[in-house]
């Protein structure tokens, strides 16, 4: 389970809200169904919205959505709400073989459910018109919108990295005639960027080992099962009391094998997935960092351009050129753009700072829960194993004395 910032929801609710009930918007993503054939097969989900937000069509609405619709939503939000850490989506591609495995589908469904709910409980994002469209529009409309947007906002993490690198190095230099890269010189922000990048590495490693641990549980379960079977056969061979002892041992092994498989699944859903989610969240922050860099660069560019334009304008007005009017208009336009760019940049900075605080708090909570689940699961497993073997001892003693 991953926490959402419900404490903030409703705090900036529309004053026109008539109901005495506190405002709520809750979504669930359920019922994955495989549609289509062959290569074009895909999974569709039922998205059920329950709300009393006035902007919405009614208290409850059910629509059918597919994965690419979620991507559309994410991309739109990313475009519109710069500075806010957009909740991450589960990965797009999967090894073909597992794309329709029950486990993969369940993991994805869970992640999508969390995704939408995070948006729905974010004080700013929940107001999004695109969210309303996503939650309410009929399927055809959704199809049209999705098709239209395909390719425009497709930002793969690799692309974002590249863009970030670009920002750090060149391009604008040509326009400004400068050699140095255009970067913020805020040391705290530098520290933050470094932190985010490093954090991703560390988390990815932890997640990798968590995933392997799941596999190990499965493998141990399998080998216990095989061992149990072989021991049973040996027991059948032996006969008498020793044979019985072997059979009992074999049976216990098989029981424990089942426990291990169960725990493997729990581990995957309640420990590995939250770690994965954490990694994705950090990657989303990286995307925001890129946006901020872009905004900063744009602001700088415009500031520089305005200076030049100002100089040019003064020159023109001195020589009383008839181009003054045009130049003045251009200058004013640019000034407006520049102010806009500055506003955008500053809002990104402000939002990021707010988001960061909440992000850290939320993650401590999420991880705390995940760690607790991990601990409980392992304790449950260990106790189960101890109990099972312990219960065998009196039987063994009975066998040896006979």
């Amino acid at each position, binding site marked *: *389970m991953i926490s*959402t910032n*419900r404490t903030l929801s409703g705090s900036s609710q529309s004053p026109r809200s008539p109901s005495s009930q506190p405002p709520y918007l809750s979504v669930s993503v359920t019922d994955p169904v495989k549609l289509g054939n062959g290569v074009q097969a895909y999974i569709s989900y039922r998205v059920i919205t329950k709300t009393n937000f006035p902007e919405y069509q009614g208290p409850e609405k059910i629509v059918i959505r597919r994965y690419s619709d979620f991507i559309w939503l994410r991309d739109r939000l990313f475009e519109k709400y710069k500075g806010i850490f957009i909740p991450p989506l589960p990965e797009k591609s999967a090894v073909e073989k597992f794309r329709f495995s029950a486990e993969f589908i369940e993991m994805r469904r869970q992640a999508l459910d969390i995704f939408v709910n995070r948006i729905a409980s974010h004080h700013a994002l929940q107001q999004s018109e695109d969210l309303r469209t996503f939650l309410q529009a009929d399927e055809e409309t959704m199809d049209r919108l999705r098709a239209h947007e395909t390719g425009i906002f497709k930002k793969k993490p690799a692309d974002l990295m590249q863009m970030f690198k670009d920002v750090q190095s060149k391009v604008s230099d040509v326009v400004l005639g400068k050699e140095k890269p255009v970067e913020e010189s805020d040391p705290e922000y530098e520290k*933050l960027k470094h932190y985010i990048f*490093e*954090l991703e590495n*560390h*988390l990815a*490693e*932890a997640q990798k*080992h*968590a995933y*392997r*641990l799941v596999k*190990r*549980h499965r*493998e*141990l379960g*399998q*080998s*216990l099962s095989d*061992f149990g*079977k*072989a*021991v049973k*056969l*040996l027991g*059948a*061979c*032996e006969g008498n*009391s*020793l044979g019985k*002892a072997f059979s009992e*041992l074999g049976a216990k092994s098989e029981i424990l094998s089942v426990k291990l498989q169960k725990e493997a699944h729990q581990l995957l859903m309640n420990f590995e997935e939250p770690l994965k989610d954490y990694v994705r969240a950090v990657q989303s922050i990286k995307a925001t960092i890129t946006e901020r860099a872009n905004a900063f660069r744009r602001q700088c560019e415009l500031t520089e351009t305005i200076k030049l334009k100002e100089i040019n304008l003064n020159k023109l007005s001195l020589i009383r050129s008839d181009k003054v009017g045009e130049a003045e208009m251009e200058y004013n336009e640019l000034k407006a753009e520049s102010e806009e760019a500055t506003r955008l940049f500053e809002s990104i900075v402000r939002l990021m700072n707010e988001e960061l*605080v909440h992000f*850290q*708090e939320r*993650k*401590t*909570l999420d*991880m*705390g*829960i995940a*760690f*607790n689940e*991990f*601990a*409980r699961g*392992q*304790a449950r497993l*260990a*106790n189960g*194993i*101890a109990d099972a*073997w*312990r219960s065998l*001892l009196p039987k*063994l*003693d009975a*066998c040896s004395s006979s």
Partner: protein
Amino acid sequence: MMCIEETNLHESREEMESLILDDSSNGQSHSGAKLVLNHDDPLLSSSSSFMDPQNPNSISILSSHASFNAFLDPPSYAEAIFTSFDSSSNGHDQIPLFSSSNSNPRSSDYLQISVSDPQKEQELSNSLVPGGTTYYTYLITTRTNLPEFGGSGSEFSVRRRFKDVVTLSDRLSESYRGFFIPLRPDKSVVESQVMAKQEFVEQRRVSLEKYLRRLAAHPVIRRSEELRVFLEAKGKLPLPKSVDVASRVIDGAARLPRQLLGEEAIDVNEVAQPAKGGRDLLRMFRELKQAVSNDWSSVKPVVVEEDKWFLEKKEKLMEFEQELSNVSQQAELLVKAQQDMGETMGELGLAFVKLTKFETEEAVFDSQRERAGDMKNVATAAVKSSRLYRELNGQTVKHLEKLHEYLGIMLAVNNAFSDRSSALLTVQTLSSDLASLHLKIEKLEAASAKIFGGDRSRLRRIEELKETVRATEDAKICAEREYERIKENIRSELERHDKERHDDFMSMLRGFVVNQAGYAEKMANVWETLAEETNAYVKDGS
């Protein structure tokens, strides 16, 4: 040695950190483990510091063990949980010095053998190769109070090389047909070329020791002349290297007079040995023709009523061996899976240690510091769990090694049954020899009767043949006696083996189960601690 230490070892967080981040590899391999555990793992180095500093050989355990002591009786628990790793025994395996008390009614009898101090020596003769070839000798030290060695306790040593061991083994196989004689170590010709010299010599030393101790544990073999000579006789080993029939003492046959009758002479002593390797090439060929195989399959024609018992036994043993081999394989896979689990858990722990360090250093918000603390707890639990898996596995290997041992014993059983088959073949060969001799005599008598006054040459021939018949009959009696003797040996060995196997496997099972339960409890404790430490999130959270 087993020490029961219940220490409340509370590790400070700093110590934990330094433990894990210390990358020096102690490289202390846990001997006795059949699978080679990963030596590169930095966690391995920390196991020593995890132990109680007062007593480096004991393994300290976590607190609150009322549950342990309540249900498990201390000795078996101690055996399973608290046995220290034999870091001091440099490679000595777990076969006890004392011979198994099952086979030895008087437990005050002892025959302890150890093999040590390998030394390189030069081959003296053989000057064809300049510089000569070298070989290794090993110091065989014996402590015993058996009457064969003088009665009152004594200790003595001799130097032997591997060839001597081969000789000993061969001689024992001949003298103790029908017994389940432990198999000697491999010659390992390939390995001796490929492996590093020191490693190979050490491996050989260990296997020699195991072998000699097994011999010493066998109630009949331990009193054999061959073994005594091997352990005691100074200088060159005074056992014949190859089959030397003349110097043999064979039960029963020695009392029969030797009859030298020319080229058809049959040395009754020889009869008691399989034709293979003996001087009777003719009989060897015949036996080869008759025998289908000297392994488990029966020799044609053998369907005699009394052999039903043996046939049934053989069937059962074959089946048993098959299943045992299966279990042994699965046991190895199980051990591997446990090892992998421990490793991955350890790696997970390390990853969290790094995360903890990172978040602590970079913390700007309190929530980060809190998270860093949580992660440290996770790291601690994971690393502890990893170590427990490692220990569990070490013990598991010790217990399940019995399976491998019994596979070896099955080979010895197989050999004994082969002895029986060859002895039976000898009897049958002699029977058919007799039959054809009688036929020849009949034919000659018939032909001779037709000639008036007798046929001197034929009559002489008949006399000769009759002499041969008498010798062959004597030989056959010898062979039958030998056959019966071998069958009796097998019977008594099977009885001994059945009982030993029953006891050994029961204790193996029990040890395995106690081990698993004990470590599972320890692990549960570790994780329950972490669950408590993180419980606050579940109460406060959604």
